[in-house]
């Protein structure tokens, strides 16, 4: 599976990365949300700090919640953010 995916960040994830979104190419072997997060985590120490503990993060694939095991499929947007705190 190749293609591209828009990754969008919110709250402290966005602030610590200093970007609110990026486009990534989906290389072979990237099948799930967890694969994307592992790839981000491998970018360096700062990234590892943010992305290595998936328990602190929440994921939405095309605006529906997903888990690390959720396949990317034909999704166009992956959002990564901390647990929500509205209301």
């Amino acid at each position, binding site marked *: 599976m190749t293609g591209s995916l828009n990754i*969008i960040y*919110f*709250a*402290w994830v966005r602030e610590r990365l200093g970007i609110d979104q990026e486009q990534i190419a989906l290389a072979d072997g990237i099948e799930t949300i967890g694969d994307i997060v592992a790839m981000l985590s491998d970018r360096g120490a700062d990234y590892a700090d943010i992305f290595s503990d998936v328990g602190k993060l929440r994921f*939405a694939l095309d*605006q529906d*919640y997903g888990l690390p095991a959720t396949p990317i499929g034909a999704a166009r*947007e992956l*959002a990564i*953010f*901390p*647990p*929500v*705190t*509205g*209301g």
Partner: protein
Amino acid sequence: MIKIVVGPDDFDIGVETQQVAGQGGGAIASFVGQVRDDGNLASLELEHYPAMTQKALRQIAETALSEWALHAVTIVHRVGKLAVGDNIVLVVTGSDHRGAAIESCSFIMDRLKTVAPFWKKETGTDGTTKWIEERESDVAASEKWQK
């Protein structure tokens, strides 16, 4: 009838409850959440995920409509910069029966707290900022509705 409003503008609980009441029933429950003064809070910034927020709130409202006999559900959630005492969120439910109205209002708030993509960042009176963290009690409140 479902009404979802997400934006910077304040709401009027009188107007919103009247609108829900106008859909029939006679039992109208509502909940308002405001920015609470914890002693050293200067302001609150509410960020959200626009493409997902409406969808997430609508799903919560639809679940409420399928679980309880309701005539109307209104959810209003503000975003942007808010001061102590400002309104944040309003939920209004209308039913023939008070039990259905009050329970569904409680359900919607519990779900909203753990599912709707909003994030709060506090600025203290000393100028420091801090992202609010998820509370265990909110997670437990949301999970108790799962059957």
